[in-house]
Structure formats: C-alpha cells, structure tokens
C-alpha cells in the first residue's frame, strides 16, 4: 500500500516536471526575452547587464529550477499583452470560472441523477423514450452549438436572458461573485446549462444503467415481497447501491468541466480563465499560456492522484495487485 502511494506520488511529480519543462521551453525559446523587453536603442553592455540581471546567462537546469520555484509561488511573469503579472490576472478571473463550474456541476448532478432514476423506473413510458432520444442528440451536438442554440432561443427570440457576460458582480474581498445580484444570477443560467448538459447526459445514462442493473437483483425482489412500498424499494434500497460508481465518475468529470468551460466561456464571452487562455493562444501571449498549462496540469494530476488513492483505500484488490 505504502509503495503504491509513493509510486503514484512520484509519478505525478514527474508529470508535473515534464509539463513544467514544456512551459519553461516556451518562455526560453520562443523569441528572445531580451528582445521582447528592450527597445531599439540598446548597447551590448545593456544586453549583457539585463541578461545577468534576469539570470539568463546561467546554465539551463539552474534557470529551470528558478522557473519552477517562481511557478510554485504563483509567479509566472508578466503578460505580454496586458503588461500585468499573470498570477494577478488569473486570480481576478478565477472566481468567474469557478462559479460557472460549480453551478453547472450542481445542475448536471441534480438533473442527471433525477432523470436517470426517472427513466430507469418508468422504462416504458413515452417520457422516458423522449428523454433518451433527446440525450442522444445532446451527446452528438457540439458544446458550442448548444450554446448558440440556447442564445438564439432565450436571448434573441424570447429576449428573456442575457447572451453574454456575467451581469453585475459584487466584490467580497478578492472574490467577485455573481450570486448576489439578479442580473448575475440570470447571466449564469444559459452558460451553466450549456456547460453542464454533456455531463448531465453522462450521469443520467450511467445512473439509468446502474439502476436497471440493481433493480434486477434478488434483494429488490425480496424487498418487494416483504411488501415495502415502491418508493422505499426504489429510493432506499436501489438508489443507494447505484450511487457508488456514480460518485467516482462525478469526481473524474470535475476536471473536464473546468476544461470545457473554455468553450462555454468563449460562446458567452464569460470573463473567466478559459476565455483568457483562448485569447492568449490567439495573441501568442506566452506567459499566460504557460501559466494556464501549469495550472490545469496541477489540477488534473491532483484530481487523478486523489481518485487513485481513494480507489486504493476503498478497493483492497488494487492494493494486493500493486504489491506483486
């Protein structure tokens, strides 16, 4: 068990080091930082002095180590486009993305589990058929088209909801929240449905399949034979055993919500980290790209490490397998 944990952690660190190397090479080899920072009027002495001042005359591993140390402290350099520290820009933008991800995750879980249970219990009804067909279409529609469709329906035709931006936000310390104003809440609806729809379909199909599997088992028949009401059988007996695999999938999907937020944020011009990243790619703003690359890798590697460790804690077979 201990060796398994140590190996997994070691592997995660290795991945992060490689990602860091890629991010660092982007800094180091795309253009000359000195060229980027100094104007036309410079002397050879100036260049040498700045090179020494920035530590660019030091050997590669030393520079890499310094870069990693800076990154660990949230210091990713200065954005080429905005001229401000990248760490600061990301910290400003993070609340927008996190709020969007939280609301759409919530929507996906509630609606997904609810519809999954419904379609599993009422397998034959027309409503279930309708939901299943709609979910098939939902899976094959690309996220950005869903967003455009929703904008067209609810913003252009019905004029009910805003089509872009966050609405009014309230600042609480460093955190800017859209939860406290009516326009902020209204602005959240369309983007979070767009972002959550795919995850919702995924959760719904999983819950439906698991629940149908569970409902066929003997102990459910036994519960019915004991004369328990349909409600108690479905929710107390069946649902509980359905939720274990569902929870692991939800955990793994957490990261993809943040990743797919890039698309949703672009469609709705949501001022989050994803839109920042897309703009950084368009304008080749390397410090922002490198910072986003590091950030998202830390997040994904962290989530996966956590899920793996949880698995090892829950499932004893994994532990013995790793021992051999």
């Amino acid at each position, binding site marked *: 068990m201990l060796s398994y944990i140590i190996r997994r952690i070691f*592997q995660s660190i290795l*991945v992060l080091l490689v990602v860091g190397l*890629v991010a660092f090479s*982007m800094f180091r*080899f*795309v253009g000359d930082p000195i060229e980027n920072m100094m104007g036309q009027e410079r002397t050879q002495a100036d260049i040498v002095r700045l090179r020494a001042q920035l530590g660019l005359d030091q050997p590669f591993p030393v520079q890499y180590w310094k870069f990693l140390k800076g990154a660990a402290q949230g210091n990713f350099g200065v954005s080429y486009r905005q001229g401000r520290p990248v760490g600061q820009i990301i910290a400003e933008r993070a609340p927008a993305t996190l709020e969007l991800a939280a609301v759409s995750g919530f929507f996906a879980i509630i609606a997904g589990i609810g519809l999954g249970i419904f379609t599993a219990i009422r397998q034959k009804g027309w409503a279930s058929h309708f939901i299943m067909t709609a979910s098939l279409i939902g899976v*094959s*529609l*690309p*996220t*950005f*088209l869903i967003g*455009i469709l929703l*904008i*067209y329906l609810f913003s*252009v035709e019905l004029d009910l909801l805003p*089509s872009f931006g966050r609405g009014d936000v309230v600042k609480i310390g460093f955190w800017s929240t859209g939860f406290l104003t009516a326009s902020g809440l209204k602005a959240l609806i369309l983007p979070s449905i767009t972002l959550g729809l795919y995850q919702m379909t995924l959760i719904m199909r999983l819950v439906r399949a698991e629940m149908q599997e569970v409902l066929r088992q003997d102990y459910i028949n036994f519960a019915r034979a004991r004369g328990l009401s349909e409600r108690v059988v479905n929710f107390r007996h069946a649902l509980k055993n359905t939720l274990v695999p569902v929870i692991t999938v939800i955990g793994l999907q957490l*990261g*993809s919500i943040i*990743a*797919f937020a*890039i*698309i949703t944020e*672009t*469609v709705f011009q949501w001022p989050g980290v994803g839109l920042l*990243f*897309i703009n*950084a*790619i*368009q304008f*080749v703003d*390397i410090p922002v*790209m490198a910072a986003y*690359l590091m950030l*998202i890798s830390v997040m*994904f*590697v962290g989530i*996966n490490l956590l899920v793996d460790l949880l698995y090892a804690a829950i499932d004893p077979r994994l532990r013995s397998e790793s021992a051999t």
Partner: protein
Amino acid sequence: MTTAKIKRPFAPRLRAFWASDLAWSFRHSPVAFASFIFVCLLTFCAIFAPLIAPHDPFNPATLNLMNGFTAPGTPNAFTGESFVLGTDDQGRDVFSTILYGMRISLFVGFAAVMLGMVLGITAGLVAGYRGGWTETIIMRIADVQLTFPAILVAMLIFGITKSFTPVEYRDQMAIWVLILAIGLSDWVQFARVVRGATLVEKNKEYVQAAQLVGRSGLAIMVRHILPNVLSPVLVIATISLALAIIAEATLSFLGVGAPPTQPSLGTLIRIGQGFLFSGEWWILFFPACTLLALALSVNLLGDWLRDALNPRLR
C-alpha cells in the same frame, strides 16, 4: 492478355467481399447504407467543390458587396441576383463557402485521424510486442494523456506549436498545426486497443512459427500481427473521424483553428454567430446543419461498424 491476368484475381475478391458477413450486414442496415451514401456524397462535394460551387467565395474579383446579406431563395434588392442559401456580409454565396469549408473540415479530419492512427498503431504494436520498459513508458504516457480531455490536449498542442512557429508563417501553417494538434490528441485510443490485441496475438502459434523461421521483429509486427488487429482499429478510426471533425470545428469556432482566409465549417459558424442578433440566421444555420449532418452520419457509420465487427453480437 497481360491486363486480363492482372484483373482476374480482383473480381473473385470483390465477390468474396460482397458475400462476407460485413457486406451482408451493411446491405441489411438501412441506417448504415444511408449514412455511407451521405458521407460519400459530402466527401464528393467537398473534393469537387471548385467545380460544383456556383461562385468562388475566395476570389475577391467575383464578389459584389452589394450582394451582402441576401436572404436564401429571394433575389437581392440591388442586384437582383438570387442565392440558394443566401449570402454573408461580404456577398459570398453561403452554399459555396459551405462546400469550400467542408473541404477544409474533412481534410483536417481525415489527416488528423491518419496521423493519430499511424502513431497509435506504431506505439501499440511496439508496446505490445516488445513489452518491458518500452511498454511501461509508452503506456504511462498514454495513461497521463488520457486523464486530460482530448479537446484540451489539442488546444494546448495548438497553442504550443503556434508559439514555436515564426510569425510570418502562422496563418499558412494553421491548418497543419491543427492536424498535428488533433492527431496527437487521439493516438492514445489506437495505441491502447492495438496493444491489447497484440498481447493476445503474440502468443499465438503463427507468431511463434514466424519467430522460429527467424523473421525480424519488425516483419512480424507489420506483416503478421498488424493485419490481425486491424478490425478494431477500423472502428476507432471511424468514430475518431467524427470526433476529429467536431474538434476541428470547435477549435476553429473558438478562433484558434483554421484562419479566416481558409475558413472551415467551424470558422463559418464563428462568422455566422456575429449576425445572429441582426436576424441573418442563414449565415449561421446552414454551416451548423452541415457540420451536424456530417458528424452524425460518420457517427452512425461508426456505430454500425462496431456492432458488425463485434463477434459477441453475432
């Protein structure tokens, strides 16, 4: 005489294919048949776009700005010309831009899948056949990449490659960078399946026989094992094609894919989104429908192929 000699083995082979289980299942599945015809039709239109398209949307000499925003089917108020699917803001015929856009979308899709397939098959064969450290390293890389969503990997690769391309070539290279990014993001599926199948095949007698005869490892992998692991690869390739087309459209829609000078379907949708509020729905609607129809029919074809090649369902 000589031509007859070369031709002769072909006809029985075709007949054998026609009589095979796969062809039988194809003939008896209307969905597969319809989507195959549809994909072929779209591919044909895309390849011969310059001949089919009524206008050349990228030749400024033939464009007339007065034709801008013509609604589909109705003649333009100034010039009296009419366009089947209308025109965009610059007076470009939407039908023609879709044909040309489909060309880019399909080209990027096919090329990216080819790249991913070649990389994945090579990695999978080597990992499965050699085993040991090679296998560990390849499969670890695959595992790590699989934890990131493919579209995110494609975006990151696109961004990194773009930043390494010299500024003056960036627009010209965009299509190739796109192919590289999408191709590198989906090799893992191929590698995993091929490795799994190779692990099974390499212990079979025909491989041992080839080893005893003294064939080289490369020859055994390519000539003996590869033909036997191809059927799952075909299924994945079809499904990957649908995913690659969607991924390309998504990247182009986000503005980090095909440049406006070579618009793909995604770029056209991006352009069309700007006119959604002013009522020119056709600039967005028709490219979006084309993209959906294309992705859906390739997907249906993939689904059918998976079921048809799955021995457990026979």
